[in-house]
């Protein structure tokens, strides 16, 4: 039995404003789920409906098999880390963490032990007497975390908890959060708009757009089998490059024609593409799947626009048919702006999308 089940839930704020249009999701016990999507896609609204801070317009929410759709927030047995922490400034760190335990009339010494334990877990055990105003942003974040963990909830919700931290701390907290999750095994839903955060933390990622789920999958699945152009473009930095090509079948080979290049692929391996004979399809190429090759074996040649060294790799950008294309190359390869380079694709790793529906064209070979 899943811990959390969202069955066809939706939220309408006013006549034409939908927070969430349709959402179906099952979260397994101990799972770490990340809701990922651009700002305004309905992640917060989903979270708030699960928490009961927002009434659903339609649908059912089950928590451990129990229908909680119309149960008040405080009785749902969930806890939450808010984006702006929402820790209470007039209470000490200790009082913040102990708040819900006191309301539950837990015995005093148990409260003390529990607060100390959770505070130690997030490394603020020595700050319990302080007021939130005397803490740094990162420490306040930890207080919010400890407060949520102390409840030992059935479900642990986090709405962009790291977005107010500086870049370096954010990466550190990512790792710590994951470690805490492995230790507590609390079923968690984590909201973010940062795809690298999602990739690094999630057991499964739920990608949302315009109030709907676009794809649910493990980080590898959403990266290597992006369900549509949106996902392929959203996941990964730099994002995928897209090329619209015309598909034609000639002398038994499939040829994909772009104004600047023509790709010929094996008709058996890519037999699904045959159905697109004489139609447009869209190729999605991740930056690492475009390769620099000697000019004589290149699919096309192009002049380098800019080179962005990153240390571990470098990003090379060029212009193709008026659009910027970015690729990742190893730091050993020496390229400079205005060099003319030969380029080719790692055909095995390319994504193909229907140009009308923008959906992935599933290839049978991928199932192998």
């Amino acid at each position, binding site marked *: 039995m899943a811990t959390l089940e969202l069955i066809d839930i939706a939220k309408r704020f006013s006549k034409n404003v939908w927070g969430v249009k349709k959402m179906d999701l099952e979260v397994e016990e101990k799972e770490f789920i990340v809701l990922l999507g651009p700002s305004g896609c309905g992640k917060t609204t989903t979270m708030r409906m699960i928490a009961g801070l927002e*009434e659903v317009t*339609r649908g059912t929410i089950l928590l451990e098999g129990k229908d909680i*759709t*119309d149960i008040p927030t405080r009785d749902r047995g969930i806890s939450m880390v808010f984006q702006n922490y929402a820790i209470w400034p007039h209470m000490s760190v200790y009082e913040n963490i102990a708040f819900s335990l006191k309301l539950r009339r837990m015995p005093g010494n148990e409260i003390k032990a529990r607060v100390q334990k959770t505070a130690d877990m997030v490394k603020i055990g020595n700050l319990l007497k302080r007021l939130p105003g005397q803490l740094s942003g990162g420490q306040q974040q930890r207080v919010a975390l400890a407060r949520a963990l102390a409840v030992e909830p059935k479900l642990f919700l986090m709405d962009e908890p790291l977005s107010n931290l500086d870049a370096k701390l954010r990466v550190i907290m990512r790792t710590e959060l994951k470690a805490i999750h492995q230790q507590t095994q609390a079923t968690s839903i984590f909201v973010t708009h940062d795809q690298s955060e999602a990739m690094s933390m999630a057991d499964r990622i739920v990608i949302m757009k315009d109030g709907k789920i676009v794809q649910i999958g493990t980080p590898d699945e959403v990266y290597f089998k992006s369900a549509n152009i949106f996902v392929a473009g959203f996941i990964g930095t730099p994002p995928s490059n897209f090329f619209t090509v015309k598909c034609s079948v000639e002398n038994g080979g499939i040829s994909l024609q772009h104004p600047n290049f023509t790709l010929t692929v094996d008709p058996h391996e890519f037999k699904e593409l045959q159905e697109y004979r004489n139609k447009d399809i869209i190729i999605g190429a991740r930056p690492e799947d475009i390769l620099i090759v000697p000019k004589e074996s290149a699919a096309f040649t192009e002049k380098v626009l800019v080179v962005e060294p990153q240390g571990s790799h470098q990003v090379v950008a060029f212009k193709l048919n008026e659009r910027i294309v970015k690729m990742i190359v190893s730091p050993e390869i020496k390229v400079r702006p205005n060099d003319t380079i030969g380029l080719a694709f790692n055909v095995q790793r390319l994504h193909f999308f229907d140009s009308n529906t923008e959906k992935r064209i599933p290839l049978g070979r991928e199932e192998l």
Partner: protein
Amino acid sequence: MNRMYKRQLRRSAKRASLYIVITGILIIIILPIFFLFSFSFMSDYETYSEWPKPLVPSLKAEFKLDKEVDGYHLFIFNRSENDFMPFGPLSFHDDAGELEKLQEFVKRQANCTLPVSKIREYMHKADSGTPVTFNLRKKLLANYVLFFQVVNGAPKAVLNSLMVALATIVISLSIGGMAGFAFARYFFKGKNLLKLSVLFVRMFPAVSIAIPMVIILGRMGLYDQPLGLSLVYSVGQISMSIWITASVFMSIPVSLEEAAMVFGTSRVGAFWHITLPLALPGLAACAMYSFIGSWNEVISAVVLTQFNPTFPVVVYKALVGSQGQINLITAGSVAQALPAIIFTLIIRKYIIQMWSGVKV
């Protein structure tokens, strides 16, 4: 489906009860104000001869003229009795003096114009034996006009009040605005003390300050002068101005000034070209707040004026001294209240902002 229906029902019930409560509150708030306005439009007849008093002023008066053996009789329609009631002299005849008196009576009591020629016209019609009825348009603003005519020095008092208000605005906005800016932009010793001045200043009753001020202003030659009064009002207004302007300046990021200074303006120039224009609406609100405070003040003005009273003093004396009918006094009150109400509604956003800016 059933659940959605239930949810909707619950929501509707919740909303309905909310709006019932709100309507109740609004009635309590609005009703007295409504009646203040309503009374100010009523004629003496409506105010004193209709019982229970009509809740809304009528826009016209209905008359009936009848001829009997002893002469002509005039009746007026009484809304609470739902019938014509005798109005004016027991009977009257076609006599120039009598008719002029009647014309005056109709004007005073019913706020209607009934020229003698018209009375004669109706008398002729009534001669046939059947009574004539006719409607006259009521002059709605008659009480307001009358208030300024009969109450001693009311027009001049308005002028005095305006002068006092203007001087108060100038004094409190300039002095308070400077302090408010210091408040918003600098840290200095005694800041907290100054912040509390609003409270300290109010702890000593205004009237008790006014009493020694009689002598002090007298020595300065400002007793019974608008300027003298505004000097006293400004004590309270300055402290409010500090709070308002401080919150206004706080809401303008320092970085905007700094940006201007980066591009080569001086600190004063930055203030002049960047901060001041942005602060202007807030400062205008502050001016209006001072206006309201000064325009509404009564008691210091009672103490500190003699021959040059302000408008509130005139209304106050009319009310306390029962110098006139209640409908007349309500007209004076409305005339006094209207500018204050309008200004308050204009600056409501800033009033809220002021209180969020500074706290004890």
